[in-house]
């Protein structure tokens, strides 16, 4: 059993929780995720790691109530327990294996969409700790759904908020903002890391491919065990099949078959809807 030691609301339907899981906290690296199960009847769902604190032995997760299990978790309070919390899973972000001096020469732009801002945070924080300032676009549909802006400002170079409806920051989609930064403001980036809804990542990749900027995406397919034993999370990258839970979740965005990934993500749409209506 894993204790919820902190709970904070970030936006309507979006919560942050610190979970007591010392083993996971000790091993977690940017880019990795966890799988949780709420109770005996619960399903296993993957959630990205937003932060970790080795001393406190806690791991921070950010949850948006989009399905049955996440909606149920929203009602859990500080002091409650969840049955299972396993990780860290997947490969850490590639850049943590790079020479720091080489990294410092690079201009990196993170593009975070919605709740995808949560997994961007530990990556930007890690880079900052190693003396690398990255730029970050935080996109959301509307102002009140934009999360972690203050936290991000502490660890990033420039933070550019963007809202689809123009209620805050840049008026438009993250892809428009990328084009604006590069074409109008003359920014030069060597690497883009995009994390958010599949459709957002797909369009970011379209734009960066035209701009000729290498782009890493973090895929979020359906998962069951998260350890490579079932292949529910398989994705096609560069014409080859990979298991996102062990080979990823981060891949070269220009090689990902997004249409297949989106179609596979919708496999249980009907069942999920039935569950939500219960």
């Amino acid at each position, binding site marked *: 059993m894993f204790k919820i030691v902190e709970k904070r609301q970030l936006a309507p339907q979006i919560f942050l929780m610190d979970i007591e899981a010392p*083993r*996971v906290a000790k091993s977690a690296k940017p880019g990795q995720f966890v799988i949780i199960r709420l109770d005996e009847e619960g*399903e296993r769902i993957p959630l990205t790691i937003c932060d970790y604190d080795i001393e406190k032995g806690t791991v921070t997760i950010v949850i948006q109530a989009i399905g049955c299990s996440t909606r149920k978790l929203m009602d859990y309070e500080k002091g409650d327990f969840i049955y299972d919390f396993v990780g860290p899973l997947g490969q850490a972000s590639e850049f943590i294996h790079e020479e720091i001096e080489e990294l410092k020469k690079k201009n990196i732009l993170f593009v975070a969409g919605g709740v995808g801002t949560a997994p961007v945070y530990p990556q930007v924080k890690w880079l900052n700790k190693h003396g690398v300032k990255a730029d970050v676009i935080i996109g959301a549909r509307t102002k009140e759904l934009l999360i972690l802006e203050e936290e991000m400002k502490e660890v990033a170079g420039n933070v550019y908020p963007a809202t689809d409806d123009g209620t805050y920051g840049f008026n438009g989609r993250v892809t428009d903002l990328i084009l604006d930064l590069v074409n109008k403001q003359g920014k030069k980036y060597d690497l883009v890391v995009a994390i958010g809804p599949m459709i957002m990542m797909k369009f970011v990749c379209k734009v960066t491919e035209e701009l000729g900027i290498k782009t890493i995406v973090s895929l979020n397919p359906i998962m*069951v065990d998260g*350890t490579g034993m079932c292949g529910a999370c398989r994705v*096609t990258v560069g014409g080859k099949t990979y298991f996102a839970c062990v080979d990823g979740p981060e891949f070269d965005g220009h090689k990902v078959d997004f249409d297949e990934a989106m179609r596979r993500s919708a496999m*249980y749409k009907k069942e999920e809807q039935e569950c939500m209506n219960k």
Partner: protein
Amino acid sequence: MDRMKRIPIKEQAPEVRAKNFEEVCLGYTEEEAVKEASRCLNCKNPQCVTKCPVSIDIPGFIQHVKNREFEEAAKVIAKYSSLPAVCGRVCPQEVQCESKCVLGIKGEPVAIGKLERFVADWSREHNVNLSETKPKNGKRVAVIGSGPAGLTCAGDLAKEGYDVTIFEALHKAGGVLVYGIPEFRLPKDTVVKHEIENVKKLGVKIETNVIIGRTITVDQLLQEENFDAVFIGSGAGLPKFMGIPGENLNGVFSANEFLTRNNLMKAFKEEYATPIKVGKKVAVVGGGNVAMDAARTALRLGAEVHIVYRRSEAELPARVEEVHHAKEEGVIFDLLTNPVEIIGDENGWVKGMKCVKMELGEADESGRRRPVAIEGSEFILDVDTVIMSLGTSPNPLIYTTTEGLKINNRKCILADEETAVTSKERVYAGGDAVTGAATVILAMGAGKKAAKAIDEMLKNK
């Protein structure tokens, strides 16, 4: 009574059991077990024992059954095996203990498996205490994986007085016993849970939700957590796919995913949150026990089910009993048939599988006749779900994160078959992680040998 004939065992009727997940075989009553036990000739030089991978004193326990000393029988088995209720159910006895029974020469061999199962079930129902251990010796052993190999190794070491901790990646202990083998062959809440509780009663600690290679490494276990030895029993859980077009369409699953959803996550029960997809017409590709399990599960979820296998019935790797049960329940066998492509509809869902007819050609190195495609024999099998059951291989997570642990060309951990010794000091390995996918009882045998080797190494230290 005819000594050459087995006492028959009751089973749920096929038409009834094809619609539920209750156990198919109902087991012997006391009377039936005593009668069956009385068939055993109590050989002086029992051949049955030589073919049991954990060398259970078979005539010894059977004589106790014959004398109605069921508790004594359970104690005899407990000396050799921690999982008798499991083994009595899932061991392929026809190629092991029962294959060497003297009665089998002229008649039917003694139903050793069914008797073992009876004794184990009886001792569970009568709360027999089987948890005798030697005093603690202060030494600590970490066991990776809580499947049959790990449970056996842990149980044996605990009996010798070791402080044992099992690390399990999933949220429930049991490995393939909980995620792979279905309820109708191996009930989870009664049988599996109870046998795992018995291992815990020996003092074995089980830490679930710990993935070795991710949460913590083998090297950390030895260096930071001060374990004196490590046993790797992590199995072979990585599913294979065919690599044919259309395999990533919606509606194509690995048998591991399909069975995990149903067995571990209990997707067949309304109150559990995990969904499962089973169409109207399902093709299960493969012919092993896992393929039979997947097929019979899909059938119970309401589908018409086809086993698609490239060789003929004689080559089916599954147990004869399982094939027989599957047929009785209505699984259709499309033999000498091989898929070449999975075809999708406009929304990316499976709508058919293109197959070719096969014929058997020359025997290959393994002695099995190689299937060869018949030219121009393509046809479309009209299915909406495909379950790939082509076998599994060991997960690379452990060997890729352990300094100095060698593997062979099949990506299995290199370990001595008799001593379980690996290329790394104080690290032992056994079961499917070493052999590739095999059977429950072979994994238990490997766990047993490893426990003995670890005990000898640590005693002499």
